[in-house]
């Protein structure tokens, strides 16, 4: 004991007083057992009563989708006026939302934003709930082209509400390419070598270059041999012509605006963003066509807050909400009345005068469905396409 005391004193952990008392130095303020027990009891009580849960609170709607689309809910101060709060999570791609739903999202999520290609698949595997159109009166305001779209239906029921349509065209910098390219194959022109951009947007890249290489408008119904041709073409462009595979459309905007890239598969809002950087970047639909997806809003099966979800979705289909969202995101609207409420700069970059005709020229009339998810003869499946994409990335 004496030796221990000596060691403690030597280490400076014991302070001796003249009256013979000793005090052990501790780090920070010491705590009595009663204080400790009290603290633990308070913690247990807090845990038992539960922390405030924003996710399951009444009036809270959980949204997982493309960033910017949630603008529709706040348009006209709608969500706040209904005492609805939104818990948004933003997705990288449609597969992201599917992964979250499959791994515990069911019962915890309300709204997702699949495009028409994914809707039937998500409905089939039980991720989406059928939508009662009687509770979405604004659906009747949508352009008939979108109301009648087959991509949002599965087994006769509607599973998604067409919300936004947008264009994945060929983009170019007129300072270096004065005439609009007529074909996707123009990216192979020797004078553009090292100035070609590609994007890390799998669906868009595979659709656009399948349209080009196969010459077929039903570009998601191609054989495995045709898929191999598409992959070979993509690898050829990547190895011999591409400057880089950009990680985002924001980065593509920078590279097009700076002249690092002259021509690339792109996305219509890039034109507006580039204008903000003082650059004139334009887009064109080549003769082979382009990818024109329709993004929707859908309800996750067993969602916790159906009433508020329906209220938000109905508002999102209104002209006011759609125009607000499109003006913010530079996308197209599906509500016919919303077209007249769009800013001129949005109308300049995304045509709304002949939507049916535009789809006809781009994809043969309808947005393309997803590749088959199950083997169907010699048709390339979704898995085959994903494998091809990984081969493209690793080449």
């Amino acid at each position, binding site marked *: 004991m004496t030796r221990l005391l000596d060691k403690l004193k030597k280490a400076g952990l014991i302070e001796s007083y003249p009256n013979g008392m000793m005090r052990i130095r501790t780090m920070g303020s010491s705590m009595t057992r009663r204080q400790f027990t009290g603290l633990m009891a308070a913690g247990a009580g807090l845990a038992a009563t539960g922390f405030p849960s924003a996710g399951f609170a009444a009036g809270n709607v959980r949204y997982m989708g493309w960033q910017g689309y949630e603008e529709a809910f706040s348009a006209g101060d709608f969500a706040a006026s209904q005492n609805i709060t939104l818990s948004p999570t933003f997705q990288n791609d449609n597969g992201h939302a599917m992964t979250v739903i499959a791994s515990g999202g069911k019962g915890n999520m309300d709204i997702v934003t699949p495009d028409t290609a994914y809707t039937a698949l998500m409905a089939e595997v039980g991720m989406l709930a059928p939508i009662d159109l009687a509770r979405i009166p604004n659906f009747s305001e949508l352009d008939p082209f979108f109301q009648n779209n087959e991509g949002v239906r599965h087994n006769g029921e509607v599973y998604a509400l067409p919300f936004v349509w947008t264009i994945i065209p060929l983009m170019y910098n007129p300072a270096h390419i004065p005439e609009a390219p007529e074909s996707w194959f123009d990216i192979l022109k020797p004078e553009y070598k090292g100035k070609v951009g590609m994007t890390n947007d799998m669906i868009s890249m595979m659709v656009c270059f399948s349209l080009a290489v196969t010459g077929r408008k039903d570009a998601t119904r191609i054989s495995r041999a045709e898929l191999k041709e598409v992959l070979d073409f993509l690898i050829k462009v990547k190895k011999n012509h591409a400057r880089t595979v950009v990680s985002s459309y924001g980065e593509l905007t920078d590279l097009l605006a700076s*002249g690092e890239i002259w021509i690339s598969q792109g996305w219509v809002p890039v034109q507006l963003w580039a204008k903000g950087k003082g650059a004139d970047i334009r887009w064109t639909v080549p003769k082979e066509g382009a990818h024109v997806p329709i993004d929707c809003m859908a309800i996750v099966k067993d969602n916790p807050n159906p009433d508020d979800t329906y209220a938000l979705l109905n508002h999102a289909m209104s002209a006011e909400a759609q125009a607000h969202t499109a003006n913010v995101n530079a996308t197209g609207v599906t509500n016919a009345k919303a077209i007249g409420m769009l800013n001129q700069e949005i109308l300049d970059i995304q045509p709304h005068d002949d939507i049916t005709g535009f789809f006809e020229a781009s994809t043969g009339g309808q947005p393309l469905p997803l590749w088959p998810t199950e083997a169907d003869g010699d048709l390339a499946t979704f898995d085959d396409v994903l494998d091809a994409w990984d081969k493209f990335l*690793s080449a």
Partner: protein
Amino acid sequence: MKNGRFPYARILPVLPSVLVFTAFFAVPLAYFFIISFWRVRAFQLRPDATLAQYEAVFLDYSGPLIFTLGMALAIGLTTTLIAFAFAFFCRFRAYRFGTALIFVTLLALFGGYLTKIYMWKTILGSAGILNSALLAIGLIDNPITALLYNPVAVVITLVHYTLPLAVLPIYGSLKGIDDIPLEAARDLGASRMRIFADIIVPQCRVGILSAFSLSFIFAAGDYVTPLMVGGPSSSMIGLFIQNQFGTRLNSPLGSAMSFVVIGCCVVIILTVAAALFAVTRRRD
């Protein structure tokens, strides 16, 4: 426990970190390890006990895996060498400015990861600072496009990012070296090289290994930098892992890829450690 009483007082301080480590690292890791033997059917996880995912990793992704490990090794070794030189300078040559220089190194950690990536894009791009400067002084007629969008740009960016992380453990080890043996060796006629090789390096092996491990592991797991500055043929394995968990909805394969990367990293770090300890044996 000698007196039959559980040593609560000793265990209590580490309890929060043990709980955090268990809940947020060990348990999720165990979950992903288990599902790496499962399958996905109709986009749903199906329990199984198959090695098919591991087979797929080696058959379909060996190219990106080898490229990633090669890049990480190059980044780890380059970073460690530069970090050692800097820390050595701070400890033995900078005198009273050594601590200030280390503080400046810490400041370099501020600014974040993406900021540094964009910074290098701004420096190395065709219209970037470097090309503009070379054009302005007439050294080149056209911008050098080879500076950006290639594996070298990835190495430069990641070495820059991981350098402060590598300097600290090496500097910590060098600070722990007592000056007395160094002076004694000098008095006994040992050359600078002999002192460096026989006294200094052996005593900071742990710091060197920590620095290498930190930079190597960070580089092996990164996929954003190659995507941003690496050009068309610099995709690293992290991108494919991310795709499995996202677009491909195949978390079993993503998990298997992750564990293969972890396993390879452990093997490489152990090999580097063995080599380091063999080359720098202490001469007691």
